[in-house]
């Protein structure tokens, strides 16, 4: 229903655009200069006045009507139902919807069948009212808009104002979504912290949420929610990844921008960017099946004790994964350093490598740092590679040859499968998410400060 009406509105909008435009053309006659706005603006104006309010009615009504209907029906039949818990009412509402509009109801009884009949008829009334309101608003809007079209009418200003509102609404939606996510993260974390002390969480050295007792009578183990092993695991793997990605990425970028011939560059850059398009799960099994055994075998040959899943394997593969982030962005900023600076340096007798080390890279530093920060955020948020290559054991260690786990992996593990949403085990995921968010955010802020302090600004 919604889609049909929406499609209809689009058709009406196109039609009124054409009508408005031709009205404007006929008013202008041969003298276009007499009209304040171009015919296209008059068309857009008429489309907006005709469709704008009906569209608003459609959206608001479609969101509000089900809730209103639900309230009406529960008010009418709730007493007969004898049920009052939120879950039972939800079930009742699902059942009568299924009976009224097709579907498989959970329970079919006399009350529900009657309620479904009422719901179906009210739904018709509601839809009828909505269409009537839309039609009235549309016709009224069309008449008003059509009447307003005149040589002196400032259609362009009106249309541009409407576009501005539309853009502002888009930006607001994006910002509100972000705020919503952060707020829900914080409130859920608060629930977690009411069950587990923040001190234990932030400074605890053991992470064993699996040992939670499931039932009150169960002889449960001692669940511990110490966050430190996860943080060290995350930082260790991120650090290894950056040791691989930063030099490889920056040197690849320098080669591509300053040494490669145009032909090599034309091929090399896209190929490098393909790396960024490989799904991380593919990197994951590459890490688990190729790199981890290789590291273990090499380690054994050297007489080292290496776990079959190691932080090193995950870190190295993750480093390879983020090379294109570093190289592609760095390549762009290195290319943006003006040729005149390179010429100036060469004109003083500097070699190419001196020019790059002492002039080009310092000038490109802010961009390179932001590329690195992006890569770090990417590495910290990465889950799949770690699950497959570094394991799930929350060891508190800085030895890259042992199995470790990361914050994101634990979030994934805690929320996989059937879980109760009020146990600390599940809520811990939100706590972890919040801390990860804070860590990444502060990293970004610090990097931003560093860049602003040390940037060498060329005009």
């Amino acid at each position, binding site marked *: 229903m919604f889609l049909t009406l929406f499609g209809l509105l689009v058709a009406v909008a196109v039609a009124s655009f054409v009508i408005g435009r031709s009205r404007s053309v006929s008013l202008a006659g041969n003298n276009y200069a007499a009209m304040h706005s171009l015919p296209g603006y008059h068309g857009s104006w008429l489309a907006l006045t005709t469709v704008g309010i009906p569209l608003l009615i459609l959206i608001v009504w479609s969101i509000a009507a089900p809730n209103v209907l639900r309230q009406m029906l529960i008010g009418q039949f709730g007493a007969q139902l004898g049920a009052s818990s939120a879950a039972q009412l939800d079930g009742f509402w699902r059942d009568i919807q299924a009976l009224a509009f097709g579907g498989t109801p959970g329970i079919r009884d006399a009350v529900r069948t009657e309620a479904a009949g009422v719901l179906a008829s009210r739904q018709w009334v509601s839809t009828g009212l909505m269409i009537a309101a839309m039609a009235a608003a549309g016709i009224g809007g069309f008449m008003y808009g059509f009447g307003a079209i005149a040589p002196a009418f400032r259609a362009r200003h009106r249309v541009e104002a409407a576009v501005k509102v539309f853009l502002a609404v888009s930006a607001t939606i994006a910002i509100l979504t972000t705020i919503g996510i952060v707020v829900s993260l914080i409130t859920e974390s608060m629930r977690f912290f009411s069950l587990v002390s923040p001190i234990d969480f932030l400074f605890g050295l053991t992470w064993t949420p699996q040992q939670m007792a499931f039932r009150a009578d169960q002889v449960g183990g001692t669940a511990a929610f110490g966050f430190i092993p996860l943080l060290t695991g995350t930082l260790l793997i991120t650090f290894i990844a950056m040791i691989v990605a930063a030099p490889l990425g920056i040197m690849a970028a320098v080669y591509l921008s300053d040494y490669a*011939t145009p032909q090599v560059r034309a091929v090399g850059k896209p190929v490098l960017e393909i790396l960024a398009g490989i799904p991380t799960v593919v990197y994951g099994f590459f890490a688990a099946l190729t790199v981890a055994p290789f590291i273990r075998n090499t380690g054994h040959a050297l007489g080292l004790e290496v776990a079959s899943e190691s932080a090193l394997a995950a870190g190295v593969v993750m480093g390879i994964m983020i090379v294109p982030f570093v190289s592609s962005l760095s390549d762009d900023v290195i290319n943006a350093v*003006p040729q*005149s*600076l390179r*010429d*100036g*340096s*060469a*004109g*003083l*007798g*500097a*070699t190419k490598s*001196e020019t790059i080390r*002492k*002039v080009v890279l*310092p*000038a490109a530093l802010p961009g390179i740092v932001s590329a690195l920060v992006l890569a770090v955020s990417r590495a910290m948020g990465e889950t799949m590679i770690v699950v497959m290559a570094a394991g799930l054991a929350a060891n508190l260690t800085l030895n890259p040859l042992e199995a470790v786990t990361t914050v994101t992996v634990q979030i994934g593990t805690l929320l996989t499968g059937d879980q109760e949403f009020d146990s600390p085990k599940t809520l811990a995921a939100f706590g972890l998410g919040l801390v990860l968010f804070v860590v990444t955010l502060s990293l970004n802020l610090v990097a931003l400060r560093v860049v602003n302090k040390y940037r*060498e*600004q*060329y*005009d």
Partner: protein
Amino acid sequence: MNSLPTFQTTATQSTAPVAAARPKITGRNVNVFYGEKHAIKDVNVDIPERSVMAFIGPSGCGKSTFLRCINRMNDTISICRVTGNINIDEQDIYDRDLDVVQLRARVGMVFQKPNPFPKSIYENVAYGPRIHGLVKSKTDLDEIVETSLKKASLWNEVKDRLQESGTGLSGGQQQRLCIARAIAVSPEVILMDEPCSALDPIATAKIEELIDELKQNFTIVIVTHSMQQAARVSQRTAFFHLGILVEEGATDQIFTNPSDTRTRDYITGRFG
């Protein structure tokens, strides 16, 4: 109709016999090709030591291309090919054994648009001496920076803010900073590619004054679009047209009594 405009020329050239100076740079049968395009055709020129030589001519005539041959800046353009001989102190600069990096240390360059590095004023000047290992101590470096800035008559304006960014200076100051940067490596020759085209008249006057002082120590070759500027600063002038060196001679002779009609037409403003 054809009377020549009067250009003020510097007093020195009327008294000093220019031709007597030893040629620092000689070009013989120089040809430059950009791919298929023949940009410079059989240019022969002698550039005397410790004097200013101006290259004039309409846009695209090859004067900048020829200038960039003298320190082999054209090497960076892959499709560019140079034939013939350019000698500095009788040494062929296109010789296989010659290191282009050392050549550029001997032949400094100042560009059309001021291009200071995004570093401090001090670091801009210290850049060349550092990469060439010309200094042993910080005091030596300080001294080179100070003398270079003094020679570029910028010292008094910047001595209290040597650690500020070079890009924060005005256009004219930036260009003098670039000249100081070039002087700091003690080159023998300084090439200037329209050094004043991005500057206002006052900054231009300062640069011209500076060029006049620098010629006591350096051989200067300047490309310019301003004939007044060529007349004011140079002792010899070469007129390029369509890749050909049409006429070359003492500046006052070129501007008062050119032998070629194309030169006459150009300096009287008939074309270009």
